[in-house]
């Protein structure tokens, strides 16, 4: 149990600047902005996301072509017969490769985000509930991770393990979990000292039951919302790493790689680079919108 209203509840202005990116949901201020239309937005975002995920899952079954063999003449423009999104400089079908790439991206991003979120949630809950030196040690550790420039560390790790999809996944996971740990720990600290948890503790509920019934339900929505937004960020970051050559080698159908190798034909066949780029943008956008819509939804219901 915390022995004092100690300084650790105030985020110390140390190396770890406030949480990165759009991690922290902004404090809810009812009534300052209209959220009336948002349930509609949430439905639209979720539906679109469902369609995209379905297409990505069914990918290989939908396309008559293979993603890593020549299937037509090179440099066909989009909307050509038989090749909706055209072909690249080698004659690979771009639509097939983009769907395959989206599938890979989705899979990788979900694994990375889920893994970091679960690990961060567990560690953050532990730190927040235990308090004392456990909290100190764990939080200094996350502070240290947060003090590093995210992408550079991802780059270094991916480089260190040798360029491949899985090493860039590991690279990103390494820098991503501390965000969740910090987020969770902050929420848990806030909730754990809140009157309702003290009341539950006083009513005799202890240990894991206390955490499960009275603490985690208030932390989970924040983490879920953040994670759903972050999948978009991870997709973009994976593509970025692949773009500079830290993903799988050619001719793997990876969106970032496709965009980067298409760059040399940008003047003649712009679509080779642009279409995978748009795919990354769209995927990341969908998750961002979904997360934002979820957040408004949760805020609206007062959760």
């Amino acid at each position: 149990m915390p022995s004092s209203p100690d300084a650790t509840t105030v985020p110390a202005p140390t190396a770890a600047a406030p949480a990165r990116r759009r991690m922290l949901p902004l404090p809810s201020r009812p009534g300052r902005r209209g959220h009336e239309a948002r349930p509609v937005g949430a439905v639209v975002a979720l539906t679109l996301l469902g369609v995209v995920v379905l297409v990505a899952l069914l990918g290989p079954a939908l396309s008559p072509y293979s993603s890593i063999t020549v299937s037509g003449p090179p440099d066909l423009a989009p909307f050509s017969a038989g090749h909706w999104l055209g072909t690249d400089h080698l004659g690979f079908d771009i639509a097939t490769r983009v769907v395959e790439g989206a599938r890979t991206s989705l899979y990788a991003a979900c694994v990375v985000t889920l893994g970091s979120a679960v690990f961060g949630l567990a560690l953050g809950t532990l730190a927040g509930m235990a308090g004392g030196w456990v909290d100190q040690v764990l939080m200094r550790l996350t502070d240290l991770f947060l003090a590093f420039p995210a992408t550079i560390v991802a780059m270094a790790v991916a480089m260190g393990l040798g360029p491949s999809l899985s090493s860039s996944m590991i690279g990103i996971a390494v820098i991503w979990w501390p965000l969740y740990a910090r987020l969770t720990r902050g929420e848990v600290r806030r909730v754990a000292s809140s009157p309702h948890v003290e009341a539950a503790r006083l009513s005799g509920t202890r240990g894991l039951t206390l955490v499960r019934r009275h603490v985690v339900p208030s932390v989970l929505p924040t983490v879920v919302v953040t994670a759903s937004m972050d999948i978009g960020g991870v997709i973009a970051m994976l593509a970025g790493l692949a773009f500079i050559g830290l993903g799988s080698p050619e001719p793997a159908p990876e969106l970032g790689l496709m965009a980067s190798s298409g760059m040399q034909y940008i003047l003649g066949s712009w679509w080779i680079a642009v279409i995978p780029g748009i795919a990354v943008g769209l995927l990341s956008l969908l998750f961002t919108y979904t997360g934002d819509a979820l957040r408004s939804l949760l805020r609206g219901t007062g959760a």
Partner: protein
Amino acid sequence: MLRFAVRRLGSLVLVLLCLSILVFVLSRYGGGDPVRSYLGNNASASAVAAMREKLGLDDPMPVQFWDYVSRLLHGDLGMSLSTRRPVRAELADRLPATLELAIATLLFSVVIGVVLARVYALPGCFGGIVRFTLLGAASAPAFLVATAGVLIFFVQLGWLPVSGRTSYGPSEGLSGIYVLDGLLTGNLAYSWDALQHLLLPAFAASLGPGVALARVLADGLSTSIGSAYARTARSLGESERSVLRRHGLRNAASPALSMLGVQFGMMLSSLVVVEQIFSWNGLGQYLVMAIDRADTNAVATISLLLGAFYVVINALVDIALAAIDPRVRLS
């Protein structure tokens, strides 16, 4: 205040040390064999052994690390295995290019952030559409923005150049930052040309951070102008403009500033991508080449340098935050 700054710089040193350990470990124990990639796969076993001996690769790790750090501190950054020149020379050539781009990106982000923050806070349906669009723009990867920029402003309109830093030769100025050098030597045409080359890459790297900044700034502003102290200010007869300037901006500045520090990390990684696309001869382009040729030493050193950049910038941001907000330094 001074004490806060000293403490903050102290933790900076610690973080830098950890960063160098990380980079060191990854460069020595991860990835390919640097000796092989330097000598080629046909090198004789004895040549490899001699090279290992020369590079000190057989020493125990702490010794190697000590070696590494002391050489770093003396400015000896080792050889670049891909270009076969000292890494230090490579960096010296390319650093100004990256600095020029980074400074421009930072400035652009702030300008985009401040301008969009005003739009972002618009009420009603139009504001909703703007917020929706900006949220989307923020999630576009830098290489997509860059590619779109190339297609529109170069291929379609032909307004802006998209390759390299200048249409002329390297500048004759001292700083190596071309726009500045042109101004310093009175060669305005040169500056103008360099500026044109700078516009697209800087914009591509600053869109994401700019939008993120705008969101934080807009939220901070709306929180602080709806706060009790803003109400007090109004009750004392301050006009809405004055409330916004005297209280709104002051209080929204700290979250915005810390967001800027955080976004600087994103900017750095965008710069790597953007330099590649625009053939900008800076650290990023060098990094990509080094990755491609498994030049571990160069990759490690650039990562360390960019990492140090970020860490230092964030320490400065924290100190600036403490200067703005008295609660930070006194907590």
